[in-house]
């Protein structure tokens, strides 16, 4: 089925079961309701990180995903608050807008490689933050607050998506929404990586000259990939805006861009699901160390250093012997 082995299907099945049934059961049993938000965040950040990972896949270090997440958050907020759109329509619109910006910016900057590309994307994050501070439509320094919760959608009178504002508890709704988007994102990523486009990306990652000599339109693929990557960033950012019901220029900044990149490194650049695991460990790890009070940062960073010291190719490299997941 869809080219999956039965082993893979079982794995995916277990994963889906854990996310949609297991986690709520565990949270219900332990009463740790706060984990819903943490895991929702992990899912959303993992979506944005997936984009960063994809740009790695064409051999580019991307420290600019915070910029696209911020763009996505603002586009969705503006469409919902000022134009009265439904959040569910604003969500893909936010992704698309981020993708369009990525295409325009990508045209000149995707020619760069290595640290040069990394640095220019880092500067891009600053530029977008400063632009958000300066523009009237983003409401400048005051940000956009009091964004309404996602409203319901119905088609021919049949409710497709529920109205979040009418809910007793939006945590679970946001959790499921984020997980569904995350799974769609990673399913798309998996397909993409394992399809011809993915092979072409790999060929570009390893040698752009040779790739173009076998007829690969490298500049076109670079743009396509960067646009998809930024689409993911925009989605994640827009969802966050709707959970926080507010967007500020500082909602996503350089630190976030760097974290997205670290998520990919930590999980392992060679594995599609690396960024998901990396995000879980980096973000959830911080929460778990909450008990340590002022030593939280010290322990967190020590663990991080130890991981990279002993698993320099990412967490998933442990199972490299079993054939990997590519």
């Amino acid at each position, binding site marked *: 089925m869809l080219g999956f082995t039965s082993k893979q299907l079982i794995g995916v099945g277990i994963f889906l079961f854990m996310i949609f049934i297991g986690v709520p059961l565990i949270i219900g049993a332990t009463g740790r309701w706060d984990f819903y938000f943490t895991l929702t965040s992990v899912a959303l950040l993992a979506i944005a990180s997936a984009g960063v990972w994809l740009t790695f896949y064409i051999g580019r270090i991307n420290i600019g995903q915070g910029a696209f997440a911020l763009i996505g958050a603002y586009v969705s907020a503006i469409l919902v608050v000022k134009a009265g759109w439904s959040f569910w329509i604003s969500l893909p619109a936010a992704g698309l807008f981020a993708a369009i910006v990525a295409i325009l910016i990508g045209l000149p900057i995707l*020619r760069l490689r290595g640290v040069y590309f990394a640095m220019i994307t880092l*500067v891009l994050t600053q530029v977008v933050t*400063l632009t958000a501070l300066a523009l009237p439509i983003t409401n400048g320094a005051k940000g956009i607050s009091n964004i309404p919760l996602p409203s319901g959608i119905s088609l021919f009178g049949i409710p497709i998506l529920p109205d979040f504002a009418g809910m007793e508890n939006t945590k679970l709704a946001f959790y499921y929404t984020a997980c569904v988007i995350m799974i769609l994102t990673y399913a798309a990523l998996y397909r993409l990586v394992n399809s011809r486009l993915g092979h072409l990306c790999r060929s570009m990652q390893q040698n752009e000259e040779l790739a173009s000599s076998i007829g690969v339109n490298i500049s076109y693929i670079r743009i396509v990939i960067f646009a998809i990557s930024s689409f993911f960033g925009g989605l994640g950012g827009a969802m966050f805006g709707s959970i926080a019901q507010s967007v500020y220029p500082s909602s996503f900044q350089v630190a976030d861009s760097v974290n997205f990149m670290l998520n990919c*490194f930590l999980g392992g650049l060679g594995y599609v699901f690396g960024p998901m695991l990396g995000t879980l460990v980096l973000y959830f790890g911080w929460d778990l160390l909450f008990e340590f009070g002022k030593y939280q940062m010290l322990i967190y960073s020590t663990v991080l250093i130890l991981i*990279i010291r002993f698993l*320099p190719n990412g967490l998933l490299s442990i199972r490299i012997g079993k054939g990997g997941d590519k």
Partner: protein
Amino acid sequence: MEQILANGVYLGSQYAMIALGLTLIFALMNVLNFAHGQMYVIGGFVTYTFYGQWGVPFVLALVMSCVTLAILGALIERFLFAPVIKGSAREESTMLLAAGIAFFLDAVILLVFGEKQRGVPKIVDGVFNYDFRLIMPYDRILICVLAILSIVAFIGLMQYTKTGRALRALAQDRTAAQLMGVNVDRYSMIGFALGAMLAGLVGGLLVTITGVNLGMGGPTSIKAFMMVMIGGAGVISGAIWGGIILGFMEAIGLAVLYQYGDITYLLIFVSLMIFLAIRPQGLMGKPWG
């Protein structure tokens, strides 16, 4: 006009020193050291502790900053970067390590030195004032001169000593250097220690003017990245030019664009992006040499 020039030289010289250490480490090991800013902050706090708290003479405190950071840099290279570079499939993985070290140093700084902004007594009093056209406090002039002297000393070290030659060979081509009989492991460590030491030195110098607080690390790293990029990654003269250019960009940009208010920095960053997109290799973008 005189004021803008003076501000540019002052800012440029201190920026150049920060960028030098970063570019040295980058050239030697292809490591983008995210923790460079934190090393700078530690340098500042060490000088603060010795000079500001314990009343040790300023120069001695500076030496302590250098020594502390050199040791720290050597340890980090020997026990963290070297093994990770060896075991890693892609050298970019060191970015994660560098970021982890930056977090770690931030945590240590907070626990050891506290969260407050710190400052030390002025080393020289008084302000040089030329007819209100050029105003420059004496301590800034002194620090600026010291920074320039340090840069000159560093260039001298790289050009005329055995260590310097070995480091340059290493930066140019690791394998070739090894064939020429350069002890690669040893000089990588020395180079990293030297880079860290430069960060510590400039931190110690600047604590007399700007003071120091734990928040300065991250932004300093990012600023240093930009300077390195402007000049051309891994090139010594590039780092110096990058520092000076960013210094002048700030001095001139603020003087010329201030009426645009909130978008002054936006303009500076956008022009930086355009510059990098047009000339990715920076000004001096060519191999070390």
